[in-house]
C-alpha cells in the first residue's frame, strides 16, 4: 500500500511586512520573504531534521505546516489536509512541541494538563489512562505529576510537554527546538525515548534543532533552509560530504603524550598544553564518539572530554559556499 506523504509542500511562500520608523511620523514598509518557494515532501513514518540558522524560516514553516499561519503563496498538505483551513481537524492528528513555549497549565499540577488534553482530544477515558500510564512510565514523570507546572525544572517540563503532545497518539510529531537548554543527560534520555516511541508507534517526526546530535540520532533525512529557501535535502552523511561538518572531540589526558595521530576515522587538529589536551576531528556517520574515545583510551588515560559540535550557522555558510 502506498500511503500519501505526511507532509507535502509545493512552492510554499510566506511574506511579512515589517514597518520601521523613519522619524516621528513616517514609517517605511518593507516586505520580508521569511519562506520563499519551499518544495518538499515527507513520507509517512519518516523522521526528518529541519535545520537552519536563526531567522532562516524554520518556525514560519512549522507554523504553516500546522495551520497556525496562512501561506502567502503555494500549497501545503499535512496529513492530507490543508492546514489553515482544517486546523482543528489536523490538530487531532499531529502533536506539536514548541520548545520555548508551554502547552501545560502553568499554575496547576502537571496531571491536570493531561486531564484537559484528554478532553480536548475527546479521548476515551480508559484509553487515555492507559496511554498516560505508558508515557509517565517511559518519560519518568511519576515523581512530579502532582507538582504545579511552574515549579518544574526545564528538563521535567520538556518531558511533560512531549507527553502532552503524544497523549492523543498523533501520526506526526513536530518538535520545534525540543532540546534547547537541556543538559547532556536530559537530552540523551529524551532522544532514547523518541527513538523508542517511533519504533513502537511508527510516528512520523519533523524536528527543528540547533543540535547536530539530535539530527544524527533522531532523523534519517536533513532539510537545510537558508533565508527561506531550501539549501539542502538529503542524508546527514551527504550533508557532511558537501560541507565537511566535523565534530571535534577534545580530550584532557592525565599525562602528556605525543600527538594522537592515526586514530581511526579522525584527524588530529590540535595539541595544547604540551600534549595534555588534544583535539580530534571526526565525521559523524563514519565513526562515533564512542569509537573514537575507545581508540584514544588504548593509547592514553583520559581525564575529561568535551565534544564540539559543528555550528549550524557554519554548516549553512559552508553549504552556501559549496554550491
Amino acid at each position: 500500500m502506498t500511503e500519501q506523504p505526511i507532509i507535502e509542500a509545493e512552492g510554499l511562500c510566506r511574506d511579512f511586512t515589517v514597518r520601521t520608523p523613519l522619524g516621528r511620523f513616517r514609517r517605511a514598509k518593507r516586505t520580508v520573504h521569511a519562506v520563499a518557494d519551499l518544495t518538499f515532501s515527507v513520507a509517512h513514518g519518516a523522521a526528518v531534521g529541519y535545520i537552519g540558522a536563526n531567522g532562516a524560516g524554520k518556525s514560519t514553516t512549522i507554523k504553516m505546516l500546522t495551520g497556525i499561519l496562512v501561506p502567502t503563496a503555494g500549497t501545503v498538505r499535512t496529513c492530507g489536509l490543508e492546514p489553515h483551513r482544517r486546523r482543528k481537524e489536523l490538530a487531532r492528528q499531529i502533536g506539536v512541541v514548541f520548545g520555548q513555549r508551554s502547552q501545560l497549565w502553568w499554575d496547576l499540577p502537571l496531571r491536570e494538563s493531561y486531564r484537559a488534553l484528554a478532553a480536548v482530544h475527546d479521548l476515551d477515558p480508559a484509553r487515555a489512562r492507559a496511554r498516560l500510564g505508558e508515557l509517565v512510565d517511559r518519560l519518568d514523570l511519576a515523581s512530579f505529576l502532582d507538582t504545579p507546572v511552574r515549579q518544574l525544572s526545564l528538563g521535567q517540563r520538556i518531558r511533560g510537554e512531549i507527553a502532552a503532545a503524544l497523549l492523543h497518539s498523533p501520526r506526526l510529531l513536530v518538535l520545534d527546538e525540543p532540546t534547547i537548554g537541556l543538559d547532556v543527560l536530559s537530552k540523551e534520555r529524551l532522544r532514547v525515548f523518541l527513538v523508542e516511541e517511533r519504533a513502537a508507534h511508527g510516528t512520523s517526526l519533523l524536528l527543528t534543532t540547533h543540535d547536530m546530535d539530535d539530527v544524527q540520532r533522531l532523523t534519517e533525512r536533513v532539510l537545510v533552509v537558508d533565508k527561506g529557501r531550501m539549501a539542502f535535502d538529503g542524508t546527514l552523511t551527504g550533508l557532511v560530504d558537501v560541507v565537511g561538518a566535523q565534530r571535534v572531540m577534545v580530550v584532557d589526558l592525565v599525562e602528556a603524550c605525543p600527538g594522537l595521530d592515526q586514530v581511526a576515522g579522525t584527524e588530529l587538529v590540535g595539541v595544547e598544553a604540551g600534549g595534555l589536551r588534544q583535539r580530534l576531528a571526526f565525521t559523524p556517520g563514519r565513526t562515533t564518539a564512542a569509537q573514537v574515545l575507545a581508540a584514544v583510551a588504548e593509547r592514553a588515560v583520559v581525564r575529561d572530554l568535551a565534544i564540539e559540535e559543528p555550528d549550524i550557522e557554519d554548516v549553512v555558510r559552508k553549504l552556501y559556499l559549496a554550491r
Partner: protein
Amino acid sequence: MHPLRTFAVFTALGFRRFSAYRLATAAGAFTNTVFGLIKASITVGVIGAAGGELAGYDALTGATYAWLTQAIIAPVQIFAWDELAQRIRTGDIAVDLARPVDLQMTYLAGDLGRAAFQVLPRGLPPLVAGALVTGLALPHTALPYLLGALALLLGVVVSFLCRWLVNIAAFWLVELRGLMTLYVVSVGAFSGVLIPVHWFPSWLASVAAASPFPSMVQTPVDLLMGRVEGAPALRLLAVQVLWVLMIGVAGRVALRRGVRTVVVQGG
C-alpha cells in the same frame, strides 16, 4: 458531547486556577469590602443631601446597591485583563491554535470557571459587612434571586466578550495600554459600578443604554434587588443576550481576521 466535555473541563480548570491563589482572593475581598464601605457611605450621604430619596433609591436601597455592586465586580471582572493579549504578543497563542478546540469557547469556559470560584469568596465579605454596617434591602421571594443569578451569568459573559475583543486588538496593536485604559474607564463610568445609571442625566443615560456596559453590573444588581421585575426584567435579560450575540460574533470575526492576516510573533 465533545464540545460540552471540553467546555466543562476548561471551566473546572478556570475554577481551580483561581482557587490556587487564596491570599490574593482574601486581599481582593478585603479591598472590595473597604471600598464598599466608602461607596455605601457616599451613596447614603448623597441620598440624604437629595432629601432622603434619589431616583427611587432611599438610604437603605442606595447602600444595598453599593454593597451589591462591590460583591459582583470580581466575578464580573470589571478590571483590566490582558492574559490573551499577552499570549498574542509573545506568540504563545500558537500553542492555543495548535489545539483542536474553539479558542473563544475555551477561554469563555475558563473565565466562567474563574467567575464561579470568585462569587462566594469575593462576594460574601462585602455583603456580610453591608448587613452589619448599613443593613441590606433584599427581596424576600426566590424569583429575583433566580433572575439575578441568570443576569449575573450573562453579565460575566458580556464582560468576557468585551475583554476578548479588546485583547484581540493585540493582533494589530503592539501597545495595548491606551485601549485597555479607555475600556476600563468606560466600564467604570457606564456599567453602574460607581453610581446607578438611573442617576445619570438623560443624555448620559442614553449613551450608557447604547453600550453593553450596564449589562455587566447595573442589570444583575437591578434584578437581584428586585428593582426591576416581570416583563421589564425579561426585557433586560433579552438586552444582555443581544449583546452576547453581537459582541460574541464580532469577537469570532476579529479572531479569524487576526489569525489570517497577522504575524504570530516570535520564533
